[in-house]
Protein backbone atom coordinates (compact mmCIF):
# COMPACT_ATOMS: atom_id res chain seq x y z
CA UNK A 1 0.00 0.00 0.00
CA UNK A 2 1.43 3.38 -0.97
CA UNK A 3 2.28 5.67 1.89
CA UNK A 4 0.01 8.66 2.20
CA UNK A 5 2.44 10.69 4.28
CA UNK A 6 6.11 10.48 5.10
CA UNK A 7 6.94 10.23 8.80
CA UNK A 8 8.31 13.80 8.61
CA UNK A 9 5.06 15.09 7.06
CA UNK A 10 2.96 13.40 9.73
CA UNK A 11 5.19 14.88 12.42
CA UNK A 12 4.90 18.35 10.85
CA UNK A 13 1.09 18.07 10.72
CA UNK A 14 0.91 16.96 14.35
CA UNK A 15 3.30 19.74 15.39
CA UNK A 16 1.06 22.24 13.61
CA UNK A 17 -1.98 20.83 15.40
CA UNK A 18 -0.30 21.14 18.81
CA UNK A 19 0.97 24.66 18.06
CA UNK A 20 -2.47 25.98 17.10
CA UNK A 21 -4.29 24.38 20.04
CA UNK A 22 -6.86 25.42 21.28
CA UNK A 23 -7.73 26.45 17.72
CA UNK A 24 -8.09 24.06 14.83
CA UNK A 25 -5.16 23.98 12.43
CA UNK A 26 -5.43 23.29 8.71
CA UNK A 27 -3.27 22.64 5.68
CA UNK A 28 -2.75 20.59 2.56
CA UNK A 29 -0.20 18.27 1.03
CA UNK A 30 0.39 19.03 -2.64
CA UNK A 31 2.05 16.42 -4.82
CA UNK A 32 3.28 16.77 -8.38
CA UNK A 33 2.69 13.34 -9.93
CA UNK A 34 5.50 11.83 -11.94
CA UNK A 35 8.12 13.93 -10.21
CA UNK A 36 6.62 12.98 -6.84
CA UNK A 37 7.55 16.45 -5.68
CA UNK A 38 5.77 17.04 -2.38
CA UNK A 39 4.92 20.28 -0.62
CA UNK A 40 3.25 20.43 2.74
CA UNK A 41 1.46 23.74 2.99
CA UNK A 42 0.55 24.74 6.54
CA UNK A 43 -2.38 27.12 6.05
CA UNK A 44 -3.86 29.88 8.15
CA UNK A 45 -7.26 29.27 9.73
CA UNK A 46 -9.32 32.46 9.29
CA UNK A 47 -12.43 31.11 11.03
CA UNK A 48 -12.13 33.59 13.94
CA UNK A 49 -11.98 36.52 11.51
CA UNK A 50 -14.99 35.24 9.58
CA UNK A 51 -16.88 34.71 12.83
CA UNK A 52 -16.06 38.23 14.04
CA UNK A 53 -17.21 39.74 10.74
CA UNK A 54 -20.35 37.67 10.18
CA UNK A 55 -21.36 35.54 13.19
CA UNK A 56 -24.66 34.55 11.57
CA UNK A 57 -23.06 33.01 8.52
CA UNK A 58 -20.07 31.73 10.51
CA UNK A 59 -21.44 30.87 13.96
CA UNK A 60 -18.39 28.87 15.00
CA UNK A 61 -14.98 30.06 16.15
CA UNK A 62 -11.65 28.46 15.32
CA UNK A 63 -12.00 26.24 18.37
CA UNK A 64 -14.53 24.10 16.50
CA UNK A 65 -14.01 25.03 12.86
CA UNK A 66 -11.48 25.87 10.20
CA UNK A 67 -11.55 27.88 7.02
CA UNK A 68 -8.37 28.01 4.95
CA UNK A 69 -7.25 31.60 4.30
CA UNK A 70 -7.92 33.08 0.87
CA UNK A 71 -4.21 33.67 0.26
CA UNK A 72 -3.57 29.97 0.88
CA UNK A 73 -6.45 28.94 -1.42
CA UNK A 74 -4.97 31.10 -4.15
CA UNK A 75 -1.55 29.56 -3.51
CA UNK A 76 -3.12 26.10 -3.85
CA UNK A 77 -4.67 27.25 -7.14
CA UNK A 78 -1.30 28.50 -8.36
CA UNK A 79 0.37 25.23 -7.46
CA UNK A 80 -2.37 23.26 -9.23
CA UNK A 81 -1.55 25.36 -12.28
CA UNK A 82 2.03 24.09 -12.00
CA UNK A 83 0.83 20.50 -12.04
CA UNK A 84 0.50 19.83 -8.32
CA UNK A 85 -2.58 18.06 -7.03
CA UNK A 86 -4.20 18.19 -3.63
CA UNK A 87 -3.33 14.82 -2.09
CA UNK A 88 -4.13 15.48 1.58
CA UNK A 89 -6.31 18.05 3.33
CA UNK A 90 -5.66 18.09 7.05
CA UNK A 91 -7.11 19.81 10.08
CA UNK A 92 -7.33 19.25 13.81
CA UNK A 93 -10.15 18.76 16.28
CA UNK A 94 -9.74 20.41 19.66
CA UNK A 95 -10.53 18.14 22.62
CA UNK A 96 -12.57 15.95 20.27
CA UNK A 97 -11.90 12.75 18.33
CA UNK A 98 -10.28 12.45 14.92
CA UNK A 99 -13.59 11.56 13.26
CA UNK A 100 -14.81 13.07 10.00
CA UNK A 101 -17.67 15.20 11.27
CA UNK A 102 -20.95 16.06 9.63
CA UNK A 103 -19.55 19.57 9.03
CA UNK A 104 -16.44 18.09 7.46
CA UNK A 105 -18.59 15.94 5.16
CA UNK A 106 -20.86 18.79 4.13
CA UNK A 107 -17.95 21.11 3.37
CA UNK A 108 -16.11 18.48 1.36
CA UNK A 109 -18.96 18.20 -1.17
CA UNK A 110 -20.30 20.50 -3.84
CA UNK A 111 -23.63 19.73 -5.46
CA UNK A 112 -23.65 16.22 -4.01
CA UNK A 113 -20.20 15.23 -5.25
CA UNK A 114 -16.84 15.33 -3.43
CA UNK A 115 -14.88 18.49 -4.25
CA UNK A 116 -11.54 16.69 -4.23
CA UNK A 117 -12.36 13.01 -4.83
CA UNK A 118 -8.66 12.10 -4.98
CA UNK A 119 -7.78 13.76 -1.68
CA UNK A 120 -7.53 12.06 1.69
CA UNK A 121 -8.72 14.06 4.67
CA UNK A 122 -6.46 13.70 7.70
CA UNK A 123 -7.87 14.70 11.07
CA UNK A 124 -5.69 15.14 14.15
CA UNK A 125 -7.31 14.98 17.57
CA UNK A 126 -5.58 17.23 20.09
CA UNK A 127 -6.64 16.72 23.70
CA UNK A 128 -5.29 19.02 26.38
CA UNK A 129 -2.60 20.19 23.97
CA UNK A 130 -1.39 16.69 23.06
CA UNK A 131 -2.04 14.65 19.95
CA UNK A 132 -4.44 11.90 20.95
CA UNK A 133 -4.97 10.27 17.56
CA UNK A 134 -4.68 10.90 13.84
CA UNK A 135 -7.06 9.35 11.35
CA UNK A 136 -7.56 9.40 7.59
CA UNK A 137 -10.82 9.58 5.62
CA UNK A 138 -11.45 9.20 1.92
CA UNK A 139 -14.50 9.37 -0.32
CA UNK A 140 -15.74 5.97 -1.42
CA UNK A 141 -17.65 6.14 -4.73
CA UNK A 142 -19.18 2.71 -3.98
CA UNK A 143 -20.47 3.78 -0.57
CA UNK A 144 -21.14 7.32 -1.77
CA UNK A 145 -19.75 8.46 1.54
CA UNK A 146 -16.54 9.32 3.31
CA UNK A 147 -15.06 6.30 5.05
CA UNK A 148 -12.08 5.87 7.31
CA UNK A 149 -9.00 4.49 5.56
CA UNK A 150 -5.68 3.30 7.02
CA UNK A 151 -3.22 6.11 7.58
CA UNK A 152 -0.18 4.68 5.84
CA UNK A 153 3.01 6.45 6.81
CA UNK A 154 6.58 6.45 5.51
CA UNK A 155 7.76 2.89 5.16
CA UNK A 156 4.30 1.62 4.27
CA UNK A 157 3.21 0.43 7.66
CA UNK A 158 -0.31 1.32 8.63
CA UNK A 159 -0.52 3.17 11.89
CA UNK A 160 -3.62 4.09 13.76
CA UNK A 161 -1.58 6.73 15.58
CA UNK A 162 -3.06 6.30 19.00
CA UNK A 163 -0.98 7.66 21.79
Amino acid at each position, binding site marked *: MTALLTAAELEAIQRHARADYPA*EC*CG*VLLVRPGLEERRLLA*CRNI*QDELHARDPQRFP*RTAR*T*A*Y*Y*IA*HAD*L*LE*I*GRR*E*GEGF*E*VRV*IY*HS*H*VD*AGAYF*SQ*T*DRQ*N*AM*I*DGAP*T*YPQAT*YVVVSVASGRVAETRAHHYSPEMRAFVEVPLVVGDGTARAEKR
Partner: protein
Amino acid sequence: MAVSVYIPTPFRGATGNTPRVDVDAADVKELLDALEDRFEGLRGLVRDATGQVHHHVNLYVNGEEIGGLQGPATRLKDGDEVSIIPALAGGA
Protein backbone atom coordinates in the same frame (compact mmCIF):
# COMPACT_ATOMS: atom_id res chain seq x y z
CA MET B 1 -13.49 42.86 -22.31
CA ALA B 2 -11.24 39.79 -22.07
CA VAL B 3 -10.86 38.42 -18.59
CA SER B 4 -8.76 35.37 -17.77
CA VAL B 5 -10.55 32.84 -15.57
CA TYR B 6 -8.78 30.20 -13.53
CA ILE B 7 -10.75 26.95 -13.37
CA PRO B 8 -9.84 24.79 -10.33
CA THR B 9 -9.07 21.10 -10.74
CA PRO B 10 -12.41 19.93 -9.27
CA PHE B 11 -14.32 21.81 -12.00
CA ARG B 12 -12.12 20.99 -14.95
CA GLY B 13 -14.22 17.99 -15.89
CA ALA B 14 -16.73 20.57 -17.05
CA THR B 15 -14.22 22.55 -19.13
CA GLY B 16 -12.55 19.68 -20.98
CA ASN B 17 -9.61 19.83 -18.57
CA THR B 18 -8.87 23.43 -19.48
CA PRO B 19 -7.37 25.25 -16.48
CA ARG B 20 -7.78 28.74 -17.90
CA VAL B 21 -10.37 30.30 -20.17
CA ASP B 22 -10.81 33.80 -21.54
CA VAL B 23 -14.23 35.34 -21.18
CA ASP B 24 -15.71 38.65 -22.29
CA ALA B 25 -17.72 40.08 -19.42
CA ALA B 26 -18.34 43.44 -17.76
CA ASP B 27 -18.94 42.06 -14.27
CA VAL B 28 -18.69 38.82 -12.30
CA LYS B 29 -22.32 37.81 -12.80
CA GLU B 30 -22.00 38.25 -16.54
CA LEU B 31 -18.81 36.24 -16.45
CA LEU B 32 -20.54 33.35 -14.66
CA ASP B 33 -23.45 33.50 -17.13
CA ALA B 34 -21.00 33.34 -20.04
CA LEU B 35 -19.05 30.48 -18.45
CA GLU B 36 -22.19 28.43 -17.84
CA ASP B 37 -23.39 29.05 -21.39
CA ARG B 38 -20.07 27.87 -22.75
CA PHE B 39 -19.56 24.95 -20.36
CA GLU B 40 -22.93 23.42 -19.55
CA GLY B 41 -21.31 21.16 -16.93
CA LEU B 42 -20.39 24.14 -14.78
CA ARG B 43 -24.06 24.74 -14.11
CA GLY B 44 -24.76 23.76 -10.51
CA LEU B 45 -21.08 23.65 -9.57
CA VAL B 46 -20.38 27.33 -9.07
CA ARG B 47 -23.92 28.57 -8.46
CA ASP B 48 -26.99 26.85 -7.13
CA ALA B 49 -30.36 26.62 -8.90
CA THR B 50 -31.34 30.07 -7.61
CA GLY B 51 -28.23 31.66 -9.11
CA GLN B 52 -26.44 32.19 -5.80
CA VAL B 53 -22.76 31.35 -5.67
CA HIS B 54 -22.40 28.22 -3.54
CA HIS B 55 -21.44 28.80 0.05
CA HIS B 56 -18.31 26.72 -0.47
CA VAL B 57 -17.09 28.34 -3.65
CA ASN B 58 -14.96 31.48 -3.55
CA LEU B 59 -14.49 33.90 -6.40
CA TYR B 60 -11.49 36.22 -6.59
CA VAL B 61 -10.79 39.17 -8.84
CA ASN B 62 -7.05 39.82 -9.06
CA GLY B 63 -6.59 37.89 -5.83
CA GLU B 64 -9.33 39.66 -3.87
CA GLU B 65 -12.36 37.73 -2.70
CA ILE B 66 -15.50 39.28 -4.23
CA GLY B 67 -17.21 39.38 -0.83
CA GLY B 68 -14.84 42.22 -0.01
CA LEU B 69 -15.58 43.88 -3.37
CA GLN B 70 -19.06 44.28 -4.83
CA GLY B 71 -19.96 40.59 -4.93
CA PRO B 72 -21.35 39.37 -8.28
CA ALA B 73 -21.75 43.03 -9.34
CA THR B 74 -17.97 43.53 -9.16
CA ARG B 75 -16.92 45.24 -12.38
CA LEU B 76 -14.28 43.67 -14.58
CA LYS B 77 -11.82 45.25 -16.93
CA ASP B 78 -9.59 44.04 -19.70
CA GLY B 79 -6.77 41.88 -18.38
CA ASP B 80 -8.36 41.12 -15.00
CA GLU B 81 -7.79 37.68 -13.54
CA VAL B 82 -10.70 35.85 -11.97
CA SER B 83 -10.10 32.70 -9.91
CA ILE B 84 -12.76 30.22 -8.91
CA ILE B 85 -11.58 28.20 -5.92
CA PRO B 86 -13.60 25.88 -3.67
CA ALA B 87 -13.36 26.77 0.00
CA LEU B 88 -11.58 24.29 2.22
CA ALA B 89 -13.40 24.33 5.51
CA GLY B 90 -14.87 22.08 8.16
CA GLY B 91 -14.70 21.44 11.84
CA ALA B 92 -15.51 19.17 14.75
